[in-house]
Protein backbone atom coordinates (compact mmCIF):
# COMPACT_ATOMS: atom_id res chain seq x y z
CA UNK A 1 0.00 0.00 0.00
CA UNK A 2 3.00 2.30 -0.58
CA UNK A 3 1.71 3.78 -3.83
CA UNK A 4 -0.03 6.74 -2.24
CA UNK A 5 -0.36 9.67 -4.58
CA UNK A 6 1.18 13.05 -3.84
CA UNK A 7 -2.26 14.63 -3.54
CA UNK A 8 -3.29 12.09 -0.93
CA UNK A 9 -0.16 12.68 1.09
CA UNK A 10 -0.76 16.44 1.05
CA UNK A 11 -4.38 15.95 2.15
CA UNK A 12 -3.35 13.61 4.96
CA UNK A 13 -0.69 16.05 6.10
CA UNK A 14 -3.16 18.94 6.07
CA UNK A 15 -5.75 16.92 8.00
CA UNK A 16 -3.20 15.88 10.62
CA UNK A 17 -2.01 19.48 10.99
CA UNK A 18 -5.59 20.63 11.63
CA UNK A 19 -6.06 17.86 14.18
CA UNK A 20 -2.87 18.78 16.03
CA UNK A 21 -3.78 22.49 16.02
CA UNK A 22 -7.30 21.84 17.36
CA UNK A 23 -6.15 19.61 20.19
CA UNK A 24 -2.97 21.46 21.15
CA UNK A 25 -4.03 25.07 20.73
CA UNK A 26 -5.99 25.50 24.00
CA UNK A 27 -3.12 24.13 26.10
CA UNK A 28 -0.53 26.28 24.33
CA UNK A 29 -2.74 29.36 24.55
CA UNK A 30 -3.46 29.04 28.28
CA UNK A 31 0.24 28.39 28.85
CA UNK A 32 1.06 31.63 27.02
CA UNK A 33 -1.64 33.55 28.91
CA UNK A 34 -0.14 32.46 32.20
CA UNK A 35 3.04 34.42 31.38
CA UNK A 36 1.21 37.61 30.43
CA UNK A 37 0.09 40.57 32.47
CA UNK A 38 -3.60 41.40 32.49
CA UNK A 39 -2.91 44.40 30.23
CA UNK A 40 -1.46 42.24 27.45
CA UNK A 41 -4.21 39.63 27.87
CA UNK A 42 -6.93 42.25 27.43
CA UNK A 43 -5.37 43.72 24.30
CA UNK A 44 -7.29 43.19 21.04
CA UNK A 45 -6.26 41.58 18.73
CA UNK A 46 -4.68 38.92 20.99
CA UNK A 47 -0.91 39.16 21.12
CA UNK A 48 1.33 36.35 19.92
CA UNK A 49 4.52 38.20 20.89
CA UNK A 50 4.78 39.62 24.39
CA UNK A 51 7.22 40.13 27.20
CA UNK A 52 6.85 37.09 29.47
CA UNK A 53 6.39 37.71 33.18
CA UNK A 54 6.47 35.37 36.14
CA UNK A 55 4.29 37.71 38.20
CA UNK A 56 1.23 35.43 37.98
CA UNK A 57 3.12 32.48 39.36
CA UNK A 58 4.74 34.50 42.16
CA UNK A 59 1.32 35.83 43.15
CA UNK A 60 -0.04 32.28 43.36
CA UNK A 61 2.92 30.87 45.24
CA UNK A 62 3.17 33.69 47.79
CA UNK A 63 -0.62 33.70 48.08
CA UNK A 64 -0.77 37.49 47.84
CA UNK A 65 -2.14 39.30 44.87
CA UNK A 66 -1.44 43.01 44.74
CA UNK A 67 -3.90 44.94 42.62
CA UNK A 68 -4.68 48.59 42.23
CA UNK A 69 -7.53 48.20 44.70
CA UNK A 70 -5.45 46.46 47.38
CA UNK A 71 -4.04 43.06 48.28
CA UNK A 72 -6.05 39.92 47.75
CA UNK A 73 -5.40 36.58 49.45
CA UNK A 74 -5.32 33.58 47.15
CA UNK A 75 -5.66 30.14 48.72
CA UNK A 76 -4.67 28.36 45.56
CA UNK A 77 -1.56 26.69 47.01
CA UNK A 78 -3.85 25.17 49.60
CA UNK A 79 -5.98 23.67 46.80
CA UNK A 80 -2.87 22.32 45.12
CA UNK A 81 -1.75 20.69 48.36
CA UNK A 82 -5.25 19.22 48.85
CA UNK A 83 -5.10 17.70 45.37
CA UNK A 84 -1.70 16.15 46.03
CA UNK A 85 -2.74 14.83 49.42
CA UNK A 86 -6.18 13.52 48.45
CA UNK A 87 -4.99 11.82 45.26
CA UNK A 88 -1.90 10.25 46.81
CA UNK A 89 -3.67 8.92 49.89
CA UNK A 90 -6.68 7.67 47.92
CA UNK A 91 -4.43 5.74 45.56
CA UNK A 92 -2.41 4.31 48.46
CA UNK A 93 -5.58 3.11 50.17
CA UNK A 94 -6.98 1.75 46.91
CA UNK A 95 -3.76 -0.18 46.24
CA UNK A 96 -3.77 -1.60 49.76
CA UNK A 97 -7.36 -2.80 49.39
CA UNK A 98 -7.46 -3.46 45.67
CA UNK A 99 -4.29 -5.45 44.98
CA UNK A 100 -5.09 -8.36 47.37
CA UNK A 101 -8.67 -8.42 46.06
CA UNK A 102 -7.43 -8.41 42.47
CA UNK A 103 -5.15 -11.33 43.32
CA UNK A 104 -8.06 -13.23 44.84
CA UNK A 105 -10.22 -12.66 41.76
CA UNK A 106 -7.42 -13.65 39.39
CA UNK A 107 -6.27 -16.80 41.17
CA UNK A 108 -9.34 -18.20 42.92
CA UNK A 109 -12.63 -18.70 41.20
CA UNK A 110 -14.64 -18.70 44.40
CA UNK A 111 -18.39 -18.55 44.78
CA UNK A 112 -19.70 -15.07 44.03
CA UNK A 113 -16.32 -13.84 42.86
CA UNK A 114 -17.56 -12.61 39.50
CA UNK A 115 -20.60 -10.99 41.10
CA UNK A 116 -18.43 -9.06 43.53
CA UNK A 117 -16.00 -8.04 40.81
CA UNK A 118 -18.84 -6.78 38.62
CA UNK A 119 -20.47 -4.95 41.51
CA UNK A 120 -17.21 -3.09 41.99
CA UNK A 121 -17.02 -2.43 38.26
CA UNK A 122 -20.58 -1.09 38.17
CA UNK A 123 -19.56 1.73 40.52
CA UNK A 124 -17.49 3.07 37.67
CA UNK A 125 -20.67 3.58 35.63
CA UNK A 126 -23.28 4.62 38.15
CA UNK A 127 -24.18 8.33 38.24
CA UNK A 128 -21.99 9.92 40.92
CA UNK A 129 -24.69 12.19 42.33
CA UNK A 130 -27.03 9.24 42.93
CA UNK A 131 -24.74 8.31 45.80
CA UNK A 132 -23.24 11.70 46.61
CA UNK A 133 -26.41 13.61 47.43
CA UNK A 134 -27.68 11.25 50.18
CA UNK A 135 -24.07 10.90 51.29
CA UNK A 136 -23.87 14.63 52.11
CA UNK A 137 -26.70 14.16 54.61
CA UNK A 138 -25.08 11.02 56.09
CA UNK A 139 -21.66 12.66 56.29
CA UNK A 140 -23.13 15.52 58.29
CA UNK A 141 -24.57 13.06 60.80
CA UNK A 142 -21.36 10.99 60.96
CA UNK A 143 -19.13 14.03 61.30
CA UNK A 144 -17.39 13.11 58.03
CA UNK A 145 -18.56 16.20 56.17
CA UNK A 146 -15.61 18.22 54.94
CA UNK A 147 -12.96 15.83 56.27
CA UNK A 148 -10.09 14.27 54.37
CA UNK A 149 -11.12 10.82 55.59
CA UNK A 150 -14.62 11.17 54.15
CA UNK A 151 -13.25 12.39 50.84
CA UNK A 152 -10.64 9.64 50.60
CA UNK A 153 -13.33 7.07 51.28
CA UNK A 154 -15.53 8.39 48.49
CA UNK A 155 -12.53 8.65 46.14
CA UNK A 156 -12.33 4.84 46.40
CA UNK A 157 -15.29 4.81 44.01
CA UNK A 158 -12.93 6.04 41.30
CA UNK A 159 -9.69 4.35 42.31
CA UNK A 160 -10.78 0.87 43.45
CA UNK A 161 -12.58 -0.40 40.30
CA UNK A 162 -9.74 0.88 38.13
CA UNK A 163 -7.02 -0.79 40.20
CA UNK A 164 -8.99 -3.95 40.75
CA UNK A 165 -9.70 -4.62 37.09
CA UNK A 166 -6.33 -3.60 35.66
CA UNK A 167 -4.25 -5.39 38.29
CA UNK A 168 -6.45 -8.48 38.01
CA UNK A 169 -5.53 -8.66 34.33
CA UNK A 170 -1.83 -8.49 35.18
CA UNK A 171 -2.13 -11.26 37.77
CA UNK A 172 -4.01 -13.42 35.24
CA UNK A 173 -1.12 -12.94 32.80
CA UNK A 174 1.31 -14.62 35.23
CA UNK A 175 1.34 -18.36 34.52
CA UNK A 176 -0.10 -20.15 37.55
CA UNK A 177 2.57 -22.85 37.19
CA UNK A 178 5.30 -20.52 38.44
CA UNK A 179 3.34 -20.01 41.64
CA UNK A 180 2.56 -23.72 42.04
CA UNK A 181 6.24 -24.56 41.71
CA UNK A 182 7.08 -22.10 44.45
CA UNK A 183 4.28 -23.42 46.67
CA UNK A 184 5.41 -27.03 46.19
CA UNK A 185 8.88 -25.98 47.32
CA UNK A 186 7.23 -25.43 50.70
CA UNK A 187 6.46 -21.72 50.75
CA UNK A 188 3.25 -20.24 52.11
CA UNK A 189 0.70 -18.53 49.87
CA UNK A 190 1.74 -15.22 51.38
CA UNK A 191 5.40 -15.75 50.51
CA UNK A 192 4.32 -16.74 47.00
CA UNK A 193 2.19 -13.61 46.69
CA UNK A 194 4.98 -11.38 47.97
CA UNK A 195 7.98 -12.96 46.24
CA UNK A 196 6.45 -14.12 42.94
CA UNK A 197 3.12 -12.51 42.08
CA UNK A 198 3.77 -8.97 43.31
CA UNK A 199 7.13 -8.46 41.57
CA UNK A 200 5.86 -9.96 38.30
CA UNK A 201 2.75 -7.77 38.29
CA UNK A 202 4.78 -4.80 39.57
CA UNK A 203 4.81 -2.66 36.42
CA UNK A 204 1.07 -3.18 35.97
CA UNK A 205 0.37 -2.23 39.56
CA UNK A 206 2.48 0.91 39.19
CA UNK A 207 0.66 1.87 36.00
CA UNK A 208 -2.73 1.27 37.58
CA UNK A 209 -1.67 3.42 40.52
CA UNK A 210 -0.59 6.26 38.22
CA UNK A 211 -3.86 6.12 36.30
CA UNK A 212 -5.91 6.06 39.47
CA UNK A 213 -3.92 9.10 40.61
CA UNK A 214 -4.76 10.94 37.39
CA UNK A 215 -8.47 10.12 37.72
CA UNK A 216 -8.57 11.11 41.38
CA UNK A 217 -6.78 14.36 40.59
CA UNK A 218 -9.15 15.18 37.74
CA UNK A 219 -12.28 14.48 39.72
CA UNK A 220 -14.54 17.44 40.25
CA UNK A 221 -17.97 16.45 41.48
CA UNK A 222 -17.04 14.56 44.66
CA UNK A 223 -15.20 17.48 46.22
CA UNK A 224 -17.70 20.00 44.87
CA UNK A 225 -20.45 18.29 46.84
CA UNK A 226 -18.57 17.11 49.92
CA UNK A 227 -15.78 19.63 50.64
CA UNK A 228 -15.67 23.28 51.63
CA UNK A 229 -13.00 25.75 50.62
CA UNK A 230 -10.19 24.53 52.89
CA UNK A 231 -10.40 20.91 51.67
CA UNK A 232 -11.09 21.51 47.99
CA UNK A 233 -8.72 20.20 45.31
CA UNK A 234 -7.62 22.31 42.33
CA UNK A 235 -10.53 21.34 40.08
CA UNK A 236 -13.06 22.91 42.42
CA UNK A 237 -10.66 25.56 43.68
CA UNK A 238 -9.98 26.94 40.21
CA UNK A 239 -13.70 27.40 39.59
CA UNK A 240 -14.12 29.20 42.90
CA UNK A 241 -11.06 31.30 42.06
CA UNK A 242 -12.67 32.50 38.81
CA UNK A 243 -15.85 33.46 40.62
CA UNK A 244 -14.07 35.25 43.46
CA UNK A 245 -11.26 37.09 41.71
CA UNK A 246 -13.25 37.97 38.60
CA UNK A 247 -10.80 39.53 36.24
CA UNK A 248 -7.38 38.22 37.28
CA UNK A 249 -7.08 36.26 34.05
CA UNK A 250 -3.29 35.91 34.17
CA UNK A 251 -3.39 34.31 37.61
CA UNK A 252 -6.32 32.09 36.63
CA UNK A 253 -4.34 30.82 33.63
CA UNK A 254 -1.29 30.21 35.81
CA UNK A 255 -3.50 28.33 38.27
CA UNK A 256 -4.87 26.17 35.46
CA UNK A 257 -1.34 25.47 34.18
CA UNK A 258 -0.19 24.41 37.66
CA UNK A 259 -3.31 22.22 38.00
CA UNK A 260 -3.00 20.33 34.74
CA UNK A 261 0.80 19.94 34.61
CA UNK A 262 1.04 17.02 37.10
CA UNK A 263 -1.49 14.86 35.28
CA UNK A 264 -0.09 15.68 31.85
CA UNK A 265 3.42 14.80 33.01
CA UNK A 266 2.27 11.53 34.57
CA UNK A 267 0.26 10.67 31.47
CA UNK A 268 3.26 11.17 29.21
CA UNK A 269 5.30 9.02 31.55
CA UNK A 270 2.71 6.22 31.73
CA UNK A 271 1.41 6.51 28.16
CA UNK A 272 2.39 2.92 27.36
CA UNK A 273 -0.25 1.73 29.84
CA UNK A 274 -2.94 4.29 29.09
CA UNK A 275 -4.86 2.25 26.52
CA UNK A 276 -5.12 -0.68 28.84
CA UNK A 277 -6.05 1.49 31.79
CA UNK A 278 -8.64 3.58 30.01
CA UNK A 279 -10.44 0.48 28.75
CA UNK A 280 -10.19 -1.12 32.22
CA UNK A 281 -8.00 -3.84 30.78
CA UNK A 282 -10.14 -4.65 27.74
CA UNK A 283 -7.70 -3.42 25.11
CA UNK A 284 -3.96 -3.88 25.19
CA UNK A 285 -1.90 -1.05 23.73
Amino acid sequence: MEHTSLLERILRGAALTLVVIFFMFPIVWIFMMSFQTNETILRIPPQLVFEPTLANYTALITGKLTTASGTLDIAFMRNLWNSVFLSTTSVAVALLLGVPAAYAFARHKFRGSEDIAFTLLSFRFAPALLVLLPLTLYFQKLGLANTYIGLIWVYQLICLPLILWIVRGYFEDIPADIEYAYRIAGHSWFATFRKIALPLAGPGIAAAGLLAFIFAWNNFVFALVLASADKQPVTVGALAFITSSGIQYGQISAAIVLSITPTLALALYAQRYLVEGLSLGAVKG
Partner: protein
Amino acid sequence: MTAATMQRNRPSGFRISKRVLPYVLSLPALLVCIGILIPFLTSVVYSFQRYRLSQPWARQFNWGENYLNFFTDPKFWNTLQVSLLYAGITVLLELLLGLAIAMLLQKRTTLNNFISIMLLMPLMTAPALAALMWKLMTNPGFGVLSYLASLIGLQDFRWASSPSTALFTVVLVDIWVYTPFIMILLLAGLRSLPTQPFEAAALDGVPRSFVFFRITLPMLTPYILTATLFRLLDSIQQFDIIYAMTQGGPGDTLTVFQVEAYLNFFQSTNVGRSAALMIILWAITYFLSNIFIKNWLRLRERARGLA
Protein backbone atom coordinates in the same frame (compact mmCIF):
# COMPACT_ATOMS: atom_id res chain seq x y z
CA MET B 1 -1.29 -12.52 59.37
CA THR B 2 2.39 -13.29 58.97
CA ALA B 3 3.99 -15.97 56.87
CA ALA B 4 5.15 -17.75 60.00
CA THR B 5 1.67 -18.27 61.45
CA MET B 6 0.41 -19.46 58.10
CA GLN B 7 3.21 -22.05 58.01
CA ARG B 8 2.33 -23.30 61.44
CA ASN B 9 -1.38 -23.57 60.72
CA ARG B 10 -0.96 -25.32 57.46
CA PRO B 11 -1.19 -29.02 58.38
CA SER B 12 -4.56 -28.66 60.14
CA GLY B 13 -6.09 -25.51 58.70
CA PHE B 14 -4.91 -25.65 55.12
CA ARG B 15 -8.15 -26.67 53.43
CA ILE B 16 -10.27 -24.17 55.25
CA SER B 17 -7.79 -21.38 54.82
CA LYS B 18 -7.67 -22.06 51.11
CA ARG B 19 -11.45 -21.77 50.88
CA VAL B 20 -11.63 -18.68 53.04
CA LEU B 21 -8.53 -16.93 51.76
CA PRO B 22 -10.08 -15.30 48.66
CA TYR B 23 -12.90 -13.89 50.78
CA VAL B 24 -10.41 -12.55 53.32
CA LEU B 25 -8.46 -10.91 50.51
CA SER B 26 -11.44 -9.28 48.81
CA LEU B 27 -13.52 -8.44 51.85
CA PRO B 28 -11.88 -5.10 52.77
CA ALA B 29 -12.40 -3.74 49.26
CA LEU B 30 -16.01 -4.88 49.36
CA LEU B 31 -16.70 -3.43 52.80
CA VAL B 32 -15.43 -0.03 51.73
CA CYS B 33 -17.87 -0.09 48.84
CA ILE B 34 -20.83 -1.38 50.80
CA GLY B 35 -20.74 1.85 52.79
CA ILE B 36 -21.36 3.51 49.46
CA LEU B 37 -24.22 1.19 48.57
CA ILE B 38 -26.28 2.40 51.52
CA PRO B 39 -26.70 5.92 50.08
CA PHE B 40 -27.87 4.28 46.87
CA LEU B 41 -30.74 2.60 48.72
CA THR B 42 -31.41 5.88 50.51
CA SER B 43 -31.79 7.54 47.13
CA VAL B 44 -34.47 5.03 46.22
CA VAL B 45 -36.35 5.84 49.44
CA TYR B 46 -35.99 9.61 48.93
CA SER B 47 -37.34 9.31 45.42
CA PHE B 48 -40.64 8.05 46.85
CA GLN B 49 -40.91 10.85 49.37
CA ARG B 50 -42.05 14.41 49.44
CA TYR B 51 -38.84 15.76 50.92
CA ARG B 52 -37.60 19.33 50.88
CA LEU B 53 -34.62 20.33 53.00
CA SER B 54 -36.33 23.65 53.61
CA GLN B 55 -39.48 21.97 54.98
CA PRO B 56 -38.27 18.91 56.90
CA TRP B 57 -41.54 18.75 58.87
CA ALA B 58 -43.55 18.10 55.71
CA ARG B 59 -41.48 15.03 54.84
CA GLN B 60 -43.65 12.01 54.04
CA PHE B 61 -44.01 9.19 51.55
CA ASN B 62 -45.88 10.21 48.45
CA TRP B 63 -45.00 7.00 46.62
CA GLY B 64 -44.88 7.49 42.88
CA GLU B 65 -45.82 11.14 42.87
CA ASN B 66 -42.32 12.42 42.08
CA TYR B 67 -42.23 10.12 39.06
CA LEU B 68 -45.81 10.78 37.96
CA ASN B 69 -45.21 14.50 38.08
CA PHE B 70 -42.45 14.11 35.50
CA PHE B 71 -45.00 13.25 32.82
CA THR B 72 -46.54 16.69 32.99
CA ASP B 73 -43.36 18.56 33.87
CA PRO B 74 -41.88 20.42 30.87
CA LYS B 75 -38.61 20.89 32.84
CA PHE B 76 -38.20 17.13 33.06
CA TRP B 77 -38.78 16.66 29.34
CA ASN B 78 -36.25 19.39 28.71
CA THR B 79 -33.73 17.55 30.92
CA LEU B 80 -34.34 14.27 29.11
CA GLN B 81 -34.12 15.91 25.72
CA VAL B 82 -30.92 17.87 26.44
CA SER B 83 -29.23 14.84 28.02
CA LEU B 84 -30.01 12.56 25.09
CA LEU B 85 -29.12 15.26 22.57
CA TYR B 86 -25.82 15.99 24.32
CA ALA B 87 -24.88 12.31 24.59
CA GLY B 88 -25.97 11.56 21.02
CA ILE B 89 -24.16 14.46 19.38
CA THR B 90 -20.93 14.16 21.35
CA VAL B 91 -20.59 10.41 20.95
CA LEU B 92 -21.45 10.45 17.25
CA LEU B 93 -19.02 13.26 16.41
CA GLU B 94 -16.28 11.86 18.63
CA LEU B 95 -16.68 8.45 17.04
CA LEU B 96 -16.39 9.79 13.48
CA LEU B 97 -13.52 12.11 14.35
CA GLY B 98 -11.74 9.51 16.51
CA LEU B 99 -11.98 6.88 13.77
CA ALA B 100 -10.69 9.31 11.15
CA ILE B 101 -7.72 10.35 13.30
CA ALA B 102 -6.93 6.75 14.23
CA MET B 103 -6.82 5.84 10.53
CA LEU B 104 -4.56 8.81 9.80
CA LEU B 105 -2.17 7.64 12.53
CA GLN B 106 -2.41 3.92 11.80
CA LYS B 107 1.09 3.46 10.36
CA ARG B 108 3.68 3.07 13.11
CA THR B 109 5.99 5.94 12.23
CA THR B 110 7.86 8.02 14.79
CA LEU B 111 5.83 11.10 13.87
CA ASN B 112 2.51 9.26 14.17
CA ASN B 113 3.42 7.81 17.55
CA PHE B 114 4.52 11.24 18.73
CA ILE B 115 1.26 12.85 17.59
CA SER B 116 -0.87 10.14 19.20
CA ILE B 117 0.91 10.75 22.50
CA MET B 118 0.44 14.52 22.19
CA LEU B 119 -3.28 14.01 21.53
CA LEU B 120 -3.61 12.31 24.92
CA MET B 121 -3.05 15.61 26.67
CA PRO B 122 -6.63 16.93 26.37
CA LEU B 123 -7.91 13.60 27.70
CA MET B 124 -5.67 13.89 30.75
CA THR B 125 -6.82 17.43 31.46
CA ALA B 126 -9.50 17.51 34.14
CA PRO B 127 -12.80 18.12 32.28
CA ALA B 128 -13.73 20.88 34.74
CA LEU B 129 -10.42 22.64 34.08
CA ALA B 130 -10.78 22.10 30.35
CA ALA B 131 -14.12 23.89 30.55
CA LEU B 132 -12.43 26.80 32.34
CA MET B 133 -9.74 26.95 29.64
CA TRP B 134 -12.39 27.20 26.95
CA LYS B 135 -14.27 29.73 29.04
CA LEU B 136 -11.20 31.96 29.03
CA MET B 137 -10.75 31.48 25.28
CA THR B 138 -14.39 32.29 24.53
CA ASN B 139 -14.60 35.32 26.80
CA PRO B 140 -16.48 38.01 24.84
CA GLY B 141 -13.99 40.71 25.95
CA PHE B 142 -10.58 39.24 25.17
CA GLY B 143 -11.10 35.56 24.26
CA VAL B 144 -8.99 34.49 21.32
CA LEU B 145 -11.80 32.38 19.88
CA SER B 146 -14.23 35.28 20.07
CA TYR B 147 -11.66 37.32 18.18
CA LEU B 148 -11.22 34.58 15.55
CA ALA B 149 -15.02 34.30 15.21
CA SER B 150 -15.24 38.04 14.60
CA LEU B 151 -12.61 37.68 11.85
CA ILE B 152 -14.86 35.28 9.91
CA GLY B 153 -17.81 37.62 10.26
CA LEU B 154 -19.40 36.27 13.45
CA GLN B 155 -19.55 39.58 15.29
CA ASP B 156 -20.65 39.23 18.88
CA PHE B 157 -20.72 35.41 18.86
CA ARG B 158 -21.78 34.64 22.44
CA TRP B 159 -20.57 31.01 22.80
CA ALA B 160 -21.79 29.51 26.09
CA SER B 161 -23.68 32.60 27.26
CA SER B 162 -26.30 32.54 24.50
CA PRO B 163 -29.05 29.89 24.59
CA SER B 164 -28.70 29.24 20.86
CA THR B 165 -24.98 28.42 20.95
CA ALA B 166 -24.50 27.09 24.51
CA LEU B 167 -25.03 23.46 23.53
CA PHE B 168 -22.63 23.86 20.61
CA THR B 169 -19.96 25.28 22.93
CA VAL B 170 -20.12 22.55 25.59
CA VAL B 171 -20.24 19.89 22.88
CA LEU B 172 -17.07 21.42 21.44
CA VAL B 173 -15.31 21.17 24.81
CA ASP B 174 -16.51 17.57 25.21
CA ILE B 175 -15.15 16.75 21.76
CA TRP B 176 -11.86 18.38 22.64
CA VAL B 177 -11.51 16.33 25.82
CA TYR B 178 -12.88 12.95 24.80
CA THR B 179 -12.16 12.42 21.08
CA PRO B 180 -8.64 11.24 22.03
CA PHE B 181 -10.24 8.51 24.15
CA ILE B 182 -12.01 6.99 21.16
CA MET B 183 -8.98 7.64 18.96
CA ILE B 184 -6.58 5.80 21.25
CA LEU B 185 -8.84 2.74 21.66
CA LEU B 186 -9.53 2.49 17.93
CA LEU B 187 -5.85 3.02 17.12
CA ALA B 188 -4.96 0.10 19.38
CA GLY B 189 -7.72 -1.90 17.66
CA LEU B 190 -6.57 -1.00 14.14
CA ARG B 191 -2.97 -1.87 14.92
CA SER B 192 -3.94 -5.24 16.36
CA LEU B 193 -5.88 -6.38 13.26
CA PRO B 194 -4.32 -9.24 11.29
CA THR B 195 -2.55 -7.99 8.15
CA GLN B 196 -3.34 -10.86 5.77
CA PRO B 197 -6.83 -9.72 4.67
CA PHE B 198 -5.46 -6.29 3.81
CA GLU B 199 -2.51 -7.71 1.88
CA ALA B 200 -4.82 -10.02 -0.03
CA ALA B 201 -7.15 -7.15 -0.86
CA ALA B 202 -4.23 -5.01 -2.03
CA LEU B 203 -2.98 -7.83 -4.28
CA ASP B 204 -6.40 -8.23 -5.84
CA GLY B 205 -6.68 -4.49 -6.37
CA VAL B 206 -9.88 -4.22 -4.36
CA PRO B 207 -11.08 -0.59 -4.11
CA ARG B 208 -10.25 1.22 -0.87
CA SER B 209 -13.88 1.94 0.04
CA PHE B 210 -14.65 -1.78 -0.22
CA VAL B 211 -11.70 -2.62 2.06
CA PHE B 212 -12.89 -0.04 4.58
CA PHE B 213 -16.54 -1.08 4.70
CA ARG B 214 -16.13 -4.84 4.26
CA ILE B 215 -12.87 -5.58 6.10
CA THR B 216 -11.75 -2.77 8.41
CA LEU B 217 -15.11 -1.81 9.89
CA PRO B 218 -16.39 -5.34 10.61
CA MET B 219 -13.11 -6.36 12.22
CA LEU B 220 -13.01 -3.17 14.24
CA THR B 221 -16.63 -3.45 15.44
CA PRO B 222 -15.94 -4.81 18.95
CA TYR B 223 -13.54 -1.93 19.58
CA ILE B 224 -15.99 0.61 18.18
CA LEU B 225 -18.80 -0.79 20.33
CA THR B 226 -16.74 -0.78 23.50
CA ALA B 227 -15.45 2.76 22.92
CA THR B 228 -18.95 4.01 22.04
CA LEU B 229 -20.64 2.49 25.06
CA PHE B 230 -17.88 3.71 27.36
CA ARG B 231 -18.42 7.24 26.07
CA LEU B 232 -22.22 6.97 26.00
CA LEU B 233 -22.25 5.94 29.65
CA ASP B 234 -20.07 8.90 30.62
CA SER B 235 -21.67 11.40 28.30
CA ILE B 236 -25.26 10.86 29.42
CA GLN B 237 -24.01 11.62 32.94
CA GLN B 238 -21.89 14.63 31.96
CA PHE B 239 -21.63 17.11 34.80
CA ASP B 240 -18.13 18.61 35.07
CA ILE B 241 -17.92 20.36 31.71
CA ILE B 242 -21.46 21.73 31.75
CA TYR B 243 -21.41 22.80 35.39
CA ALA B 244 -17.99 24.47 35.18
CA MET B 245 -18.90 26.23 31.93
CA THR B 246 -22.48 27.42 32.46
CA GLN B 247 -23.94 25.82 35.60
CA GLY B 248 -26.73 24.50 33.42
CA GLY B 249 -27.55 27.89 31.98
CA PRO B 250 -28.33 30.17 30.37
CA GLY B 251 -31.79 29.62 31.86
CA ASP B 252 -32.34 25.88 31.72
CA THR B 253 -30.75 25.35 28.30
CA LEU B 254 -28.23 22.80 29.55
CA THR B 255 -29.86 21.25 32.61
CA VAL B 256 -28.84 17.66 31.87
CA PHE B 257 -29.73 14.97 34.44
CA GLN B 258 -26.88 15.39 36.89
CA VAL B 259 -26.81 19.19 36.67
CA GLU B 260 -30.58 19.36 37.20
CA ALA B 261 -30.36 16.95 40.16
CA TYR B 262 -27.54 19.01 41.68
CA LEU B 263 -29.48 22.27 41.30
CA ASN B 264 -32.67 20.65 42.64
CA PHE B 265 -30.79 19.46 45.70
CA PHE B 266 -28.72 22.51 46.57
CA GLN B 267 -30.75 25.40 45.16
CA SER B 268 -34.40 24.41 45.40
CA THR B 269 -33.57 21.83 48.13
CA ASN B 270 -36.11 19.45 46.58
CA VAL B 271 -34.48 16.16 47.60
CA GLY B 272 -37.37 13.98 46.41
CA ARG B 273 -37.33 15.27 42.85
CA SER B 274 -33.53 15.20 42.76
CA ALA B 275 -33.46 11.55 43.86
CA ALA B 276 -36.16 10.57 41.36
CA LEU B 277 -34.12 12.17 38.56
CA MET B 278 -31.04 10.21 39.61
CA ILE B 279 -32.97 6.94 39.72
CA ILE B 280 -34.18 7.48 36.17
CA LEU B 281 -30.64 8.27 35.04
CA TRP B 282 -29.43 5.19 36.87
CA ALA B 283 -32.02 3.04 35.05
CA ILE B 284 -30.73 4.36 31.71
CA THR B 285 -27.10 3.71 32.61
CA TYR B 286 -27.92 0.29 34.03
CA PHE B 287 -29.51 -0.70 30.74
CA LEU B 288 -26.54 0.63 28.76
CA SER B 289 -23.91 -0.88 31.03
CA ASN B 290 -25.43 -4.35 30.71
CA ILE B 291 -24.91 -4.22 26.96
CA PHE B 292 -21.54 -2.68 27.57
CA ILE B 293 -20.22 -5.29 29.97
CA LYS B 294 -20.95 -8.19 27.61
CA ASN B 295 -18.97 -6.52 24.88
CA TRP B 296 -16.21 -5.39 27.15
CA LEU B 297 -15.75 -8.91 28.54
CA ARG B 298 -15.37 -10.35 25.05
CA LEU B 299 -12.67 -7.84 24.20
CA ARG B 300 -10.96 -8.40 27.53
CA GLU B 301 -10.87 -12.17 27.06
CA ARG B 302 -9.45 -11.69 23.61
CA ALA B 303 -6.76 -9.36 24.96
CA ARG B 304 -5.86 -11.90 27.66
CA GLY B 305 -5.79 -14.71 25.10
CA LEU B 306 -8.48 -16.69 26.95
CA ALA B 307 -11.00 -16.81 24.13
